[in-house]
């Protein structure tokens, strides 16, 4: 059984402009030791879906299920959730300052985190553990820096300190929401290396939310592509890049400057994402899709398997037989899938 199994999650917010349907029927699962990459443009519901699982969306209307080791996280009370957060599910956010308290020493915050969940540990023991963790994530001279305040750390060090904190209780699952988006590529490489090494060491499952397909290619085992609050496509890493089915996945990849080598002009997706208050009927991607058909504008395509691969799902009316799909690609886009290495 999967470590975390989310089923048909819906989240909406009431605002002065109307009801924002931020997450509309999202299902996914993560296994121990695996990394699930969630990608999609901003506002597609990536953060709301994971924050809801952690009990962090206030004032939202929520339905669905999120089974974590036999318990439905969506029905747990605040007290029980607090015990799970940190101890069993660690979180890393885009902005480390939002979870490191500015007035307390970095080390002290890790010590508190540990002692909250492990009452038997002495302060001295917890502090030694904090130094060990900071050391582990590559903070130079950790025994001294443990007494620094967050503002004395650089952005990259804060992000690593937050990883140390998230890992301090050996969680089974780590949710990292754009953990490297605010960082330089060199620091991003450091942070991703730390996450990967920790995962190998402890078999932690990771959900990595990002809009950077390069990061996904680097660390994910499976990928979920989201658009307008729903899952468009879900597949293993190589299928996502080399044998994707959904036109939105195709569009995301084609927009990249690095995609397909040198090219004079980039190929953007035209238009912009829909409002989540007034969603178009039918497929949410229809207004921007190069393949749109009459049916797309009225009927919502279900998330269904592609070809014979039970783990490859796509929510699109195009033929789910990959040969037929690729023929269409040739006709509409004018070129086949990118150079496809042997699977």
């Amino acid at each position, binding site marked *: 059984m999967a470590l975390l199994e989310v089923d048909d999650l819906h989240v909406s917010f009431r605002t002065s402009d109307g009801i924002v349907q931020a997450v509309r029927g999202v299902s996914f699962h993560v296994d121990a030791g695996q990394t699930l990459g969630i990608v999609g*443009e*901003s506002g597609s519901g990536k953060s709301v879906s994971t924050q809801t699982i952690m009990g962090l969306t206030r004032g939202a209307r929520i339905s669905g299920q999120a089974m974590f080791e036999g318990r439905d996280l969506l029905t747990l009370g605040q007290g029980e959730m607090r015990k799970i957060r940190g101890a069993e599910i660690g979180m890393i956010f885009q902005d480390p300052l939002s979870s490191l308290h500015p007035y307390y020493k970095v080390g002290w915050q890790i010590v508190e985190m540990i002692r909250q969940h492990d009452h038997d540990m002495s302060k001295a023991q917890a502090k030694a553990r904090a130094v060990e963790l900071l*050391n*582990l*994530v*590559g*903070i*130079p*001279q*950790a025994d001294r820096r443990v007494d620094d305040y967050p503002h004395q750390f*650089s*952005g*990259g*060090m804060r992000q690593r300190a937050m990883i140390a904190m998230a890992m301090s209780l050996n969680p089974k699952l780590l949710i990292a929401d754009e953990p490297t988006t605010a960082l*330089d*590529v*060199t*620091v*991003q*490489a*450091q942070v*991703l*290396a*730390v996450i990967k*090494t*920790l995962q190998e060491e402890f078999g932690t499952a990771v959900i990595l939310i990002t*809009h*950077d*397909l*390069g*990061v*996904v*290619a*680097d660390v994910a085992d499976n990928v979920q592509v989201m658009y307008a609050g729903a899952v468009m496509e879900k597949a293993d*890493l*190589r299928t996502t*890049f*080399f044998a994707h089915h959904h036109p939105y996945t195709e*569009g*995301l*990849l084609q*927009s*990249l*400057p*690095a*995609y397909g080598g040198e090219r004079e*002009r*980039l*190929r*953007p*997706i*035209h238009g*912009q994402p829909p409002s989540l208050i007034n969603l178009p009927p039918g497929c949410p991607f229809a207004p921007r899709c190069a393949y749109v058909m009459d049916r797309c504008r009225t009927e919502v395509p279900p998330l269904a398997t592609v070809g014979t691969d039970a783990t490859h799902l796509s929510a699109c009316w195009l033929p789910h037989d990959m040969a037929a799909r690729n023929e269409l690609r040739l006709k509409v886009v004018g070129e086949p899938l990118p150079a496809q*290495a042997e699977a």
Partner: protein
Amino acid sequence: MNAETTATVPEPAAGGDVLLRVENLVKYFPVQSSAFFRRDREYVHAVDGVSLEVRQGQTLGLVGETGCGKSTLARCILRLYNITSGRITFDGRDISKLSARQMRPLRREMQMIFQDPYGSLNPRRRVGSIIGDPFAIHKTATGQERKRKVQEVMELVGLNPEHFNRFPAEFSGGQRQRIGVARALAFRPKLIVCDEPVSALDVSIQAQIINLLADLQSELGLTYLFIAHDLSVVRHVSNKVAVMYLGQVTELAPVDDLWAHPRHPYTDALLSAVPVPDPDKAGQRERIILAGDVPSPISPPSGCRFHPRCPKAAPTCVEKDPVLEPRLGDAADHLAACHFPVEDGEDISKSRPTISADERVIESGLLGSA
């Protein structure tokens, strides 16, 4: 795009005249120091001796880690800051010491596009009047004439001219960036400094803006100084790229040359750290993971500023400041500031510094052994 507006534009030459030349530019910011140290005042060495040039119709990319001085350099070039020393020549004219008033007529020719399409637009003003600002400031067009000109620019950047009376909030992120581009274009400037123009946008929208900037460049013969932290974007748009580290240019080369033969270990590390959106290549590459963080620009390291983090650092690097010049028989336009430049095919992820421990950043734990 509108054919009329492009009729009189000169053909952008592949290697046109030098439009912008920067020589030995220095910009220091004084820092508030504690009473104890008041006697020797401290400075942030934000830009510390930068020289470069940009040719008419071309794009110079500027990359480097946060805080290395990219935006400061850009603001000095546009003379939004007074410079500490050095010389800036724009279109054959020395502008280094011009007063704000003397700069005013030149402002039309040098424009800037900012990162934040939200923050840089006043939410209470209509788009037409925002884009029309330059005309109002320079009192060149009024009333219907101004409206016509503004609508012309709106069309040029792919905005619907009928949206003249809308407020910024009624536009998406990508459209707001188009507004920023339109405002910069109002006077058909010669030089546009783009400071992270697409960083806040999603990839699909980012590609729209990059194409727009490319179209405008070829139609209007624009020259760009393009700052971005996304190296794949910089590679796509630039003819040449300057790599900055702690206020200095460490390497400067034509874009393909830089990617094919990075000479400075910092460039090598930077390029190796870029995530490639290809799962097959992602696993294969040897990633050079740099130790530690960028040191403080208040008291930069001696000699080569990169030495505390450089895998190839040797005692010479601590003592001597390396000159920015062609290395290892490179062409005259490929410059690197390094005593021990990276050879073709050399793998510096295996290199170990030969300087003493207190002169470098020592990493510990998983990263240190990785």
